């Protein structure tokens, strides 16, 4: 399955609230002049929901070409919907929802009343809803995992365990009107006041013009499904070829404990590799908003810290560990499906015969009870050659002496949605997924805008400065350090390390803290700045992650995504070694003038380094690591088969 996103030529929609036809207006994106300012109010912090396509459907929302205009109506309750759908005298309406009313029943009713509904605006609350909220499906990636009619049919389609019981599936519905989210700020107050003064029907009377109204622009060019859209984008003999949609994609990042020749693709004789995997993307209902705290960041940080913990122990291992960070797993396993495809077609530095086992780190935010669960695939386990028990016992050994417990669930259940499933589709490989839930997710905000620092209880006292917050030891950081240590030790044992040397492997909480802060609170801070570099093929200035948490959305393949850039940078610094190479040579991927060999084995990055005290200068240096990237775009685009 492939996912597309369609972006209109200006890269997404923007909202304007306005009053229409002798109504009063709010608008966004209009030039500021005094008469215009008397008519329109621009809304700034808004996020649209966009059109996405897959092989068979289109999902998401869009507006008409010139934007959609409707009379503002603040929905007070589900019964109040009747005004919008039936009795209101001035359709179409622009429905403003508080987030408690953004539920499936209400949205479905609005969807079916689409003649009278011009659009929907959801007001983002300042705190997370306590009962949980997940617009994702209740059985994520159910058609692209390993379980199907031919493989473990009793486990397919979440027959045994519903992984995401709170999932409403709203993200996968198709809407014909624009839906935007708005932060609860001054503009929202103006909107509410405007509604109360002009639009509210008092005692059954009809509100008189002029009325308060809103205009939302989020026109999308893609329709129908992937095959249709690709065909339209590739119309030949056109003087002005127009791309109406772009494939979702970015790059996966991998690094190995032993240098592997990346130019020689295909099977590597004698290599037996343990893959340590994590995913680095997330999504929400709205475009370009994906805080992904429990869902993505915890696993990511744990694996990064584990990679750092093992950097000095690699000499004692007889198997290579391959740290792999997959992108696009949220959208039917874009990254892992591509890796498996590349491995099967000798496009990757290794192939599936080289893979010994797989350890995946999933959602590992610890609640009050510090228990983690080891999930494995019951179907492949029955095969005696697939030795999951060794992996599980290594992990149990690894967790001994730490404050967390690693257990296996006591019922036979399938694997949760994980990259391991795509590997199992190719061949049976022993693999374990570490998660914080025994059966259904404990994450109440899976793939939503609420899966943020607050849901992890990452609380920083407000009187701390940014620097102090970076250093502050939160409970989440402490727990995650323990998890990272367990993962590192487990990998150490699985890769052939001796149990006696295990205790020397320890994750550093001084790295976990700033990593969590960078991903979940503020992307641009002193720690991340000093790690950033300028690579010869990367444009640093296009990476903009400022005063807000990292956006884990994968985006389209032409645009670099934030998490990938950060993971590649952090991984290079955490697993690499500093070498004495000039900046010019470093950026050309060589150690000195005559060097031509090393670029096949290593990746060189010129790192900005820390600020000198009392100065704006930095001590920059060159880091040599085994960090590599490869395309994470669905193989369907390579094969040009869009219907599978």
């Amino acid at each position, binding site marked *: 399955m492939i996912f597309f996103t369609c972006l209109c030529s200006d890269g997404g929609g923007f909202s304007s609230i*306005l*009053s*229409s*036809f*002798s*109504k*009063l*207006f*709010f*608008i966004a994106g209009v030039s500021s*002049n005094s*008469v*215009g*300012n*008397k*008519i*329109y*109010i621009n809304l700034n912090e808004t996020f649209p929901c966009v059109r996405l396509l897959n092989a068979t459907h289109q999902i998401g929302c869009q507006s008409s070409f010139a934007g959609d*205009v409707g009379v503002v109506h603040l929905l007070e309750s589900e019964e109040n919907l009747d005004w919008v759908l039936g009795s209101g005298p001035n359709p179409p309406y622009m429905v403003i929802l508080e987030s408690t009313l953004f539920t499936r029943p209400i949205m479905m009713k609005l969807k079916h009343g689409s003649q009278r509904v011009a659009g929907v605006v959801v007001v983002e609350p300042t705190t997370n809803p306590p009962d949980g909220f997940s617009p994702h499906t209740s059985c994520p990636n159910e058609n692209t995992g390993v379980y199907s009619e031919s493989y473990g049919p009793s486990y397919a389609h979440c027959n045994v365990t519903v992984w995401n019981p709170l999932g409403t599936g709203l993200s996968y519905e198709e809407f014909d009107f624009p839906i935007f989210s708005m932060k609860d700020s001054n503009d929202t107050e103006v909107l509410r006041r*405007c509604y109360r003064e002009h639009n509210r029907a008092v005692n059954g009377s009809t509100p008189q013009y*002029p009325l*308060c*109204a809103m*205009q939302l622009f989020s026109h999308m060019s893609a329709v129908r499904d992937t095959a249709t859209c690709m065909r339209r984008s590739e119309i030949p003999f056109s003087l002005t070829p127009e791309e109406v949609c772009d494939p979702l994609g970015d790059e996966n990042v991998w690094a190995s404990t032993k240098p592997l020749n990346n130019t020689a693709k295909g099977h590597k004789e004698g290599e037996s590799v343990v893959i340590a995997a994590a995913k680095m993307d997330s999504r929400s209902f709205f475009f370009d908003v994906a805080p992904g705290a429990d869902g993505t960041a915890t696993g990511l940080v744990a694996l990064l810290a584990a990679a750092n913990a093992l950097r000095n122990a690699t000499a004692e291992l007889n198997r290579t560990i391959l740290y792999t960070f997959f992108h696009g797993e949220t959208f039917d396993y874009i990254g892992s499906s591509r890796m498996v495809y590349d491995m099967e077609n000798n496009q990757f530095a290794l192939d599936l015969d080289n893979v010994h086992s797989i350890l995946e780190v999933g959602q590992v935010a610890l609640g009050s009870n510090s228990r983690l669960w080891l999930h494995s695939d019951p179907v492949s386990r029955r095969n005696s050659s697939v030795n999951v028990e060794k992996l599980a016992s290594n992990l149990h050994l690894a967790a001994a002496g730490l404050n967390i417990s690693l257990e296996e669930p006591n019922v036979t259940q399938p694997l949760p949605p994980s990259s391991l499933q795509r590997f199992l589709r190719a061949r049976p490989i022993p693999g374990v997924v570490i998660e914080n839930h025994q059966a259904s997710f404990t994450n109440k905000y899976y793939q939503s805008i609420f899966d943020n620092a607050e849901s992890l209880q990452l609380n920083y006292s407000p009187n701390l400065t940014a620097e102090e917050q970076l250093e502050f030891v939160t409970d989440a950081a402490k727990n995650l350090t323990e998890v990272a240590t367990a993962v590192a030790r487990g990998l150490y044992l699985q890769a052939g390390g001796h149990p006696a040397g295990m205790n020397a492997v320890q994750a550093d909480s001084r790295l976990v803290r700033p990593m969590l802060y960078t991903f979940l609170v503020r992307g641009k801070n002193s720690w991340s700045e000093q790690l950033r570099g300028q690579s010869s093929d990367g444009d640093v200035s296009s990476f903009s992650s400022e005063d807000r948490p990292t956006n884990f959305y994968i985006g389209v393949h032409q645009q670099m995504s934030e998490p990938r850039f950060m993971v590649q940078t952090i991984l290079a610094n955490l697993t690499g070694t500093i070498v004495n190479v000039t900046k010019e040579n470093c950026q050309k991927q060589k150690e000195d003038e005559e060097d031509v060999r090393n670029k096949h084995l290593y990746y060189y990055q010129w790192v900005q380094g820390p600020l000198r005290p009392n100065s704006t200068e930095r001590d920059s240096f060159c880091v040599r690591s085994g960090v590599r990237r490869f395309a994470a775009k669905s193989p369907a685009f390579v094969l040009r088969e869009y219907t599978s």
Partner: protein
Amino acid sequence: LLACFLADPAPVSAGLGFLTTPDPGVPAFFWLVSLLLSSLVWFISVQISNKESAAQQKGLLIFGVVLSVLLQETFRFGYYKLLKKANEGLLTLSQEETMPISIRQLAYVSGLGFGFMSGAFSVVNILADSAGPGTIGIHGDSQHYFLSSAFMTMAIILLHMFWGVVFFDACEKRCWWAVGLVVIVHLLVSCLTFQNPDYTATLVPAYVILFGMGVWAFYTAGGSLRNLKLCLTCKDKDFLLSNHRPR
């Protein structure tokens, strides 16, 4: 929106006069230049002023308006001088006894040109903003903004025409007090707009002044009640005769 033209019922037929006089584009250009100069001065003074102080900005606006009015009247006078020179030149060339083009026609056209351009500038921006789904009022401003702008613009266009007629006539007769009065009335009308958004206080005096200027211009151009009656009942012999003049 554009003004209904009060046909000037002077002996010189306005409609026909329109065809035999120079086009109003030239005086329009003069008005444009005066606007350019005054806005340049205003822009520079705003840049060097204290942008935070609202009182200072308001003061600068008043200064800008006054300067603009004075410049417009100066350019009107300049146009008059230019026309006089051109007429004298034509007179020496054509060896006729009488002036080929009547100063009254030129006055009327000059006023028309000025009014046209002034009206266009006043209204085009507002028209552009009114195209679109919204109307004024989201911050509580009055609903009558567009309507009042339209009426005010109409008044100003007509006033420019009347001022043109009176001004040129006063310059011909060397009646400098009349010239001064025209300038003062122009200043008055422009400053009336500072009373917006109290539209009644702006529009009513403006229309009173319009009526007054209209009457003054009518009498200056040689009109009288008798002329008016004859014209309206189509019995004006001079008018009918001038229609049959061979080309």
